């Protein structure tokens, strides 16, 4: 029976080439996009799944009350927390500190590489599944001067040599012995270190600070399996309070490791649901929508062809076919088409995966060997085949044999109504996607065009390895003398980022709840304003004339003035218990160092002496010189002061672009899948138009004989479709309006929904539909009427 069905299905496929092509191609595109998205989504959901203890592992988070209305959630903790929790929480099996990881030079012999250095406490290895291939967790950090490498780190440093017990140098100054090698980290983990040292080692070189008001560590906690998270978190809230040393240091709570990847976004102290998961869900829905559009094509074309197949249905029923057997016949046809489409889709995915990986910045592969994926694929095919085939199957199999065989069956308005509704739905989806894509594009443009408050062009920075900062003054002179550098300063963090912040300041007129007001901290040497181009609003820049600047002066930005509520900021004093008093000597016009979509944060810029440990040098290049010449000269000067470490530099404008990576991903995905949705919808429209044209051949012939013009006939044939697209446009607007505004709300600073977007997308949909349909309409209209009438 099935064999017979398939034989017929195959013949039908070959006989109706347009129909088959549209169905197979459309479904293949739909399936391919679903599969691509599924690979991505499953990869996102697989994060930390390999951790054997994933269900009992947590990151310590902390909520700060900035003001009555705003709570800020952070992952940084005081270094005292781990010890305190280990002692006071019987529910906790392990608690460790880690630092945040840094790109630091590691060298062995001649070889020197900049890699990610991460520091942990020993129980880290018991908690997280990062197995050793050489050495062991127990012995690795017995000696504080030890380092553990990942396999590929070891390979790139040592080649085929055995790394164990060899000495490597970190940041050109610390000699450490290799005491273990870890298996390379899986891709789906948030950890990305290349080598590990013990926190005790950081202690020994004086790079740690323990105090209840500090916030320089990450905290990881393993609960006992029977512990109740809620109960534990209730107790955690009191950790900082019961250790208060004059500051209110926020409320500690534990957050599941398994949620960190997708849900780690907080609004006023609670998970906001706006993490990566929102992007993942959005595109999961879009990929299913594309598949549905392709299924709709199949339904529409099948029912459009139903008059042709009605006779077959009648004959089969007369020869004894039951309705059930006819339904199976049509379903097996759609299943066959789906299977063919699936084959094509796999081919497409295989070919597109590298490009898709570029787009989303991953290295996904098709897991052909994974039984779950294979089962998933089978379910997908069955589901798609059933979804696209069910409506035609039930519709066609319901025909009454005498009606169709007598030729009195009329598939009038009633039969084409569902088809029209489906076309409207398809185009609704497409138009919403067009609008959404335009919005995303505009929002990114908006972010990029934000007045930055400084001049990005010809601005670069590089990191100073080891103790280079000690020679910053002579190096600065060399750089200026070279002619390629106009101005330079050093700073404690990469240009264009805000990493440090602090709270606990006092000022005149401060309200009680402002004790926790957080300020971004930037520390710079002289020439900060000259180099960046940031403007003074009032007051003065730091100057060598004022000896006290390095200890007693501070520059603040406009946002800080506003946050503090100062009328006349110049000369006001900001106090902090530990640090002392600072006088505001200047107010800077707001500038964007952090996220361009966020409101500007209050910031303090403090002056440090040239000799202080700074990590980065920022340079304003001479615009008259070429970039290559600049780099060459700067690199030579860098080598003069540091012969081993690589010269590693960034241009500020390219770094700035990277801040849009999430938005760019969103935009690229929207382009891709929006385009696909429109393509598949048009494919369906094209098919429908060709059937209409075919069915009306005789009518067109007669009209032409009676004197109708070609343009009149094209209009007549296109009009019906355009009407549908018009309805779809109108229906889609409120949906797009709602969705678009939801998207924009996500950004504190965003564009407004402009009405022209609706107009443009409506016109676009109309033009695309017209182009699609008119091909068939023109073909039918220019056909020789005598010919078409004779064939009747």
């Amino acid at each position: 029976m099935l064999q017979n069905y398939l034989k017929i299905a195959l013949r039908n496929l070959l006989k109706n080439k347009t129909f088959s092509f549209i169905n197979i191609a459309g479904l293949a595109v739909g399936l391919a996009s679903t599969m691509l998205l599924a690979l991505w989504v499953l990869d996102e959901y697989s994060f930390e799944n390999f951790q054997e203890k994933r269900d009992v592992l947590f990151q310590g988070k902390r909520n700060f009350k900035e003001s009555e209305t705003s709570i800020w959630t952070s992952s940084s903790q005081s270094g005292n927390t781990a010890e305190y929790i280990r002692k006071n929480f019987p529910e906790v099996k392990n608690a460790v500190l880690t630092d945040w990881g840094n790109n630091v030079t590691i060298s062995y012999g001649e070889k020197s590489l900049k890699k990610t250095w991460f520091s942990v406490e020993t129980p880290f290895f018991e908690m997280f599944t990062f197995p050793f291939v050489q050495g062991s967790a127990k012995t690795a950090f017995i000696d504080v001067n030890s380092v553990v490498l990942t396999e590929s780190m070891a390979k790139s440093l040592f080649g085929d040599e055995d790394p164990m017990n060899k000495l490597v140098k970190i940041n050109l100054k610390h000699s450490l012995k290799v005491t273990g090698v870890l298996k390379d980290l899986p891709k789906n983990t948030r950890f990305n270190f290349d080598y590990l040292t013990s926190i005790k080692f950081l202690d020994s070189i004086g790079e740690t600070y323990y105090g209840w008001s500090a916030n320089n560590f990450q905290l990881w906690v393993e609960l006992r399996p029977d512990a109740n998270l809620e109960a534990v978190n209730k107790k955690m809230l009191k950790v900082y309070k019961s250790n208060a040393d004059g500051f209110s240091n926020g409320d500690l709570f534990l957050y599941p490791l398994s949620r960190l990847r997708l849900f780690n976004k907080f609004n006023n102290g609670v998970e906001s649901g706006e993490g990566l998961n929102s992007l993942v869900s959005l595109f999961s829905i879009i990929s299913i929508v594309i598949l549905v559009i392709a299924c709709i094509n199949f339904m529409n074309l099948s029912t459009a062809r139903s008059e042709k197949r009605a006779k077959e249905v009648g004959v089969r029923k007369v020869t004894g076919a039951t309705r059930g057997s006819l339904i199976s016949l049509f379903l097996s046809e759609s299943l066959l088409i789906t299977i063919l489409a699936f084959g094509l889709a796999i081919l497409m995915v295989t070919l597109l995966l590298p490009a898709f990986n570029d787009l989303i910045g991953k290295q996904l592969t098709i897991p052909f060997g994974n039984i779950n994926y294979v089962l998933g694929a089978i379910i997908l095919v069955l589901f798609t085949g059933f979804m696209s085939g069910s409506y035609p199957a039930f519709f066609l199999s319901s025909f009454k044999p005498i009606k169709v065989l007598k030729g009195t069956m009329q598939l009038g308005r009633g039969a084409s109504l569902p088809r029209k509704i489906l076309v409207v739905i398809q185009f609704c989806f497409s138009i919403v996607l067009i609008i959404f894509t335009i919005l995303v594009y505009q929002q990114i443009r908006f972010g990029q065009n934000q007045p930055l408050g400084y001049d990005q062009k010809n601005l670069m920075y590089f990191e100073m390895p080891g103790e280079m900062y000690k020679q910053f003054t002579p190096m600065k002179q060399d750089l200026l003398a070279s002619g390629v550098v106009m101005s330079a300063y050093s700073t404690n963090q990469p240009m264009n980022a805000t990493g440090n912040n602090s709270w606990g300041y006092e000022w005149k007129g401060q309200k009680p709840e402002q004790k926790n007001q957080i300020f971004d901290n930037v520390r710079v040497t002289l020439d900060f304003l000259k180099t960046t181009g940031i403007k003074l609003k009032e007051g003065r820049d730091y100057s060598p004339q004022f000896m006290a600047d390095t200890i007693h002066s501070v520059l603040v930005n406009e946002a800080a003035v506003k946050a503090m509520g100062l009328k006349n900021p110049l000369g006001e004093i900001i106090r902090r218990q530990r640090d002392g008093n600072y006088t505001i000597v200047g107010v800077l016009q707001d500038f964007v160092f952090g996220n361009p979509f966020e409101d500007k944060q209050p910031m303090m810029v403090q002056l440090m002496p040239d000799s202080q440990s700074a990590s980065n040098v920022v340079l304003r290049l001479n615009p008259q010189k070429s970039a290559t010449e600049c780099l060459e000269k700067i690199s030579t000067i860098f080598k003069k002061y540091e012969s081993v470490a690589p010269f590693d530099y960034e241009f500020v404008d390219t770094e700035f672009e990277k801040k849009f990576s999430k938005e760019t991903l969103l935009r690229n995905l929207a382009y891709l899948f929006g385009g696909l949705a429109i393509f598949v919808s048009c494919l369906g429209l094209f098919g429908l138009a060709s059937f209409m044209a075919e069915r009306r051949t005789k009518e067109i012939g007669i009209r032409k004989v009676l004197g109708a013009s070609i343009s009149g006939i094209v209009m007549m044939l296109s009009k019906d479709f355009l009407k549908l697209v018009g309805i779809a446009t109108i229906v889609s607007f409120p949906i797009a309006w709602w969705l678009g505004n939801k998207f924009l709300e996500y950004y504190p600073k965003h564009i407004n929904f402009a009405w022209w977007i609706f107009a443009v997308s409506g016109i676009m949909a109309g033009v695309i539909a017209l182009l699609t349909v008119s091909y068939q309409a023109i073909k039918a209209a220019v056909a020789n009427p005598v010919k078409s009438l004779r064939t009747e």
Partner: protein
Amino acid sequence: MLQLKNIFRWYNSGANRAFVLRDVSLEIQKGEFVSIMGPSGSGKSTLLHVLGMMDEPNEGQYLFLDNNVLNIKEKQRAELYKKHIGFVFQAYHLIDELTVYENIETPLLYHGFNSSERKSMVADVLDRFNIVGKKDLFPNQLSGGQQQLVGIARAVITKPDLILADEPTGNLNSKQGEEIMDLFKTLNQEGVTIVQVTHSEKNAAVGSRIVNLLDGRVV
């Protein structure tokens, strides 16, 4: 074999009832060869469809092999039809996408024969109807007479007790028509009951009885 009692069939056209069959009573015995005649529009096809359980009368009773056809469930009626009745059309109604062989095989699929049974049954029929050479051709590659032969072959392959034929020779020339009539005669002699609709006196005479319809009434 079957009995129609006071059958009425009408269509509602506006406020009026347009009667197609009026008070038709008819009994057909097993082994009969009945020809239904009458002018165009007199309700012949409708009567045949009622007999073939494809159309339901608005009033009346229909007994088929002691089953009260109009009172039993759709499923049972379909079974009854499948088991006992074969239908032949004026317009042949072959499936264009299938070969001669496959067209003839189609009813067997729905009667649940397995593939080797089907093979031998189709081979038998092809042989008997002398169309072995045409088995791989598609309907549009056959003449009208040949197509009707296939149509009849398809109707008889399940060995029905009753063959209903609506103007089986209507589209054929007289020579082709004769062949078809000969075939019906042979089938009838083998015990198959046949009811045919025809406009031709000559073909009607082949049967054992003629039923005349006029304006939906048996006259």
